[in-house]
C-alpha cells in the first residue's frame, strides 16, 4: 500500500512536472558525492532555469494585471454611460477580449512579431505556429542574446531578447492588443450596433494594431530609426484612440447630445461607483502594463523605477485634472479627476523608462490638465465621446510619445530602458513627432476604411427608437437593473435632438 501511495502521490496531483524539473535542476547538487560530470554546468543550468522561472512569473503576473484592466475599462465606460445602455457596454467590453484572443492568436501575433520586412511580419503568421527556441536555457539563451554569435533559430526574432517561453510572450502581447480594442468601446458607446463593434474589434486586433505594432516593436521601420515607446503610448493607446476617433466620426453624436441650438447637453454617467472603481482597477493594471514591459524582473532596478514613475504620473495626473477642473469648472468634477489619472498613466507609458521620476511627475501633471481641456475641445468640435476615451488615450498617447523626447534622459535610458539613442532632446522629439504622424496616418485611415465598409454593409448604428429606449433591451433583451426605478431623464428628450 505504501508504495501504491508513493506512486499515487506522483500521479494524484498535477505538478509532477515540477518534480521532474527539480530533479533535472537539483540532481547535480545532491549527486555531488556521486561525482557529476560537470557540477559547474549543472549549477549554470539550474541558474538559467531559475532566471527564466523568475522572469516568466514576472511576465505572467504583470500580464494578468493588464488583463485585469478589462474590468477597469468595463466599469469606467459603463459607469460614465446611462443605465439603459449598461448591459450593452458591459457585453461589449466583456466580449472584446474574447474576440481579441482569437484574432491575435490566428493572425495578429504573426503580423506583429513574425520576421518580415519593415512594414509587416511575414513568417510564422498563422496561429503562433512559427519556430521559437524559447524558453531559452543554456546555449539557446545565448542565441537570443544579441551580443552572442550563436545563431537564433526562430521566426520571431524581434522578441527574442526576452528568454521567457513563447506562450508567455504571446499572452503578454495579447493583453496589450486587447487593451487597444477596448479603448474603442467607450468612445462609440450608447449608439453602436453590438455586431458591428464585434467585427471591428476582430479586424482591429487582426490587422490594424499589429501593423503599427510591427513598425515599433516588431522590427519595423520606426523602431529601427530611434523611435521609442516603452510600453505603448503610441502602440496601444494612440492606435486605440485613432480607431475610436474614426468610429466617432463614422457614427455621429448620440441623439440629444448637441441641441438644435448648438447647445452641448450633459448626459451624466449612471454610476460614479463604477467609474471610480474602474479607474482604480486601471491604475493597478498599469503597474503591470509599464513595469511588465521589461518582460524580465532583472535585478529589480528597472521595474522599481518604472513602477514609481507610473504611479507618480497617475498621482500628478489626478491632481492636475483636479486643479484644472476646480479652476475652469468651479468644482472638482470626479469624472475629470478620474480621466486625469488615466491621462497621466497614458502619458507616462512611453517615457516611463526614459525619464527621471521628477520628469514623470511633470508629464503626468501636464497630462491631467490636458485631458480636461481636450474633453472641452472635443465637445466644441461636436465629436461625441461619452467616456473621454479620445482625450485620455489619443491626446495623451500623443503627449506621452512626444514627452519622451522633451524629457529624454540619456542616463535613465541607458540604466532603465537600456535603449538609449544618444540623441539630444530636440532630436529625439523630432523622431517622436514623425512616429506620431505615421502611426496616426495609418491607424486613422485604416480604421476609417473598416468603419465605412461596415456602415455600408451591415450598418453600424442602432435605430433612433432603440437608441432612445436604450441598447440593453434593443441589443440584448436584458436590462441592467430591472429591480430599480429608473428616471425618465435617461431617455433622451426629443426636444434636444
Amino acid at each position: 500500500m505504501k508504495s501504491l501511495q508513493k506512486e499515487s502521490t506522483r500521479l494524484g496531483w498535477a505538478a509532477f512536472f515540477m518534480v521532474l524539473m527539480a530533479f533535472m535542476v537539483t540532481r547535480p547538487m545532491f549527486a555531488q558525492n556521486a561525482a557529476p560530470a560537470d557540477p559547474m554546468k549543472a549549477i549554470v543550468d539550474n541558474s538559467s532555469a531559475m532566471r527564466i522561472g523568475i522572469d516568466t512569473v514576472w511576465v505572467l503576473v504583470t500580464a494578468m494585471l493588464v488583463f485585469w484592466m478589462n474590468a477597469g475599462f468595463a466599469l469606467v465606460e459603463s459607469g460614465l454611460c446611462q443605465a439603459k445602455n449598461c448591459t450593452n457596454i458591459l457585453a461589449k467590453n466583456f466580449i472584446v477580449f474574447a474576440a481579441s484572443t482569437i484574432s491575435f492568436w490566428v493572425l495578429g501575433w504573426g503580423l506583429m512579431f513574425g520576421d518580415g520586412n519593415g512594414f509587416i511580419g511575414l513568417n510564422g503568421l498563422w496561429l503562433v505556429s512559427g519556430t521559437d527556441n524559447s524558453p531559452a536555457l543554456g546555449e539557446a539563451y545565448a542565441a537570443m542574446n544579441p551580443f552572442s554569435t550563436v545563431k537564433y533559430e526562430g521566426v520571431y526574432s524581434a522578441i527574442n531578447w526576452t528568454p521567457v517561453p513563447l506562450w508567455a510572450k504571446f499572452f503578454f502581447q495579447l493583453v496589450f492588443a486587447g487593451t487597444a480594442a477596448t479603448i474603442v468601446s467607450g468612445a462609440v458607446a450608447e449608439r453602436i450596433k453590438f455586431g458591428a463593434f464585434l467585427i471591428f474589434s476582430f479586424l482591429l486586433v487582426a490587422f490594424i494594431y499589429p501593423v503599427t505594432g510591427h513598425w515599433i516593436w516588431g522590427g519595423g521601420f520606426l523602431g529601427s530609426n530611434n523611435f521609442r515607446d516603452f510600453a505603448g503610448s503610441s502602440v496601444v493607446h494612440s492606435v486605440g484612440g485613432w480607431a475610436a476617433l474614426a468610429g466617432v466620426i463614422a457614427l455621429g453624436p448620440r441623439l440629444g447630445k448637441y441641441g438644435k441650438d448648438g447647445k452641448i447637453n450633459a448626459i451624466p454617467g449612471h454610476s460614479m461607483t463604477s467609474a471610480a472603481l474602474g479607474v482604480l482597477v486601471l491604475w493597478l493594471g498599469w503597474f503591470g502594463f509599464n513595469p511588465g514591459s521589461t518582460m524580465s524582473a532583472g535585478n529589480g532596478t528597472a521595474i522599481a523605477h518604472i513602477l514609481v514613475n507610473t504611479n507618480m504620473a497617475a498621482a500628478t495626473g489626478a491632481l492636475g485634472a483636479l486643479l484644472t477642473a476646480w479652476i475652469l469648472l468651479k468644482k472638482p468634477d470626479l469624472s475629470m479627476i478620474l480621466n486625469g489619472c488615466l491621462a497621466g498613466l497614458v502619458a507616462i507609458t512611453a517615457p516611463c523608462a526614459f525619464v527621471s521620476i521628477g520628469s514623470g511627475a511633470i508629464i503626468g501633471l501636464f497630462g491631467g490638465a490636458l485631458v480636461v481641456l481636450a474633453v472641452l475641445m472635443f465637445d466644441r468640435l461636436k465629436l461625441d465621446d461619452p467616456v473621454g476615451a479620445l482625450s485620455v488615450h489619443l491626446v495623451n498617447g500623443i503627449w506621452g510619445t512626444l514627452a519622451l523626447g522633451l524629457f529624454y534622459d540619456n542616463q535613465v535610458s541607458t540604466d532603465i530602458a537600456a535603449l538609449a539613442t544618444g540623441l539630444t532632446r530636440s532630436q529625439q522629439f523630432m523622431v517622436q513627432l514623425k512616429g506620431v504622424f505615421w502611426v496616426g496616418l495609418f491607424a486613422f485611415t485604416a480604421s476609417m476604411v473598416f468603419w465605412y465598409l461596415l456602415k455600408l454593409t451591415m450598418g453600424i448604428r442602432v435605430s433612433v427608437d432603440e437608441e432612445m429606449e436604450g441598447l440593453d433591451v434593443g441589443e440584448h433583451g436584458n436590462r441592467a437593473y430591472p429591480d430599480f426605478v429608473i428616471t425618465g431623464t435617461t431617455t433622451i428628450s426629443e426636444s434636444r435632438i
Partner: protein
Amino acid sequence: MKKLECIVRPHKLEEVKGALEALGVLGMTVSEVRGVGRQKGHTEHYRGSEYTVDFLPKVKIEVIIPNETLQQAVEAVSKAAKTGKFGDGKIFVFSVEEVIRIRTGEVGAQAI
C-alpha cells in the same frame, strides 16, 4: 382650479414642460410610473425564459392650473406629447377643491 394628470412618454417630458411654461405655468410635479395600455409591451429574454414587460416606463406630470387655462393647457400638452403612435398617453382632468402654498399660507388660485 383643475388638476391635469398627464401620462406621457419619458422622452417627451421636457417638451411638455416647455409647452406648459410657454403658457405661463410655473410649477408642476413629475414622477416615474409604469403604464399598461394599447401599446404592447415587449418580450425580453432572460436566461432562456421569455417574459413580457407589460409595464412600460412613462412619466406622470401633475399640474394644477386655474380653470381658465384648462383648454390651452390640454392642447399644449397634447401637442407636445404626441407622436401618433400607440402609447402617447392620456390627460386626466380633475377638479381641485383647494390649493394651499405652504410657504406663505396663500390659498386658491393665488397659491398655484
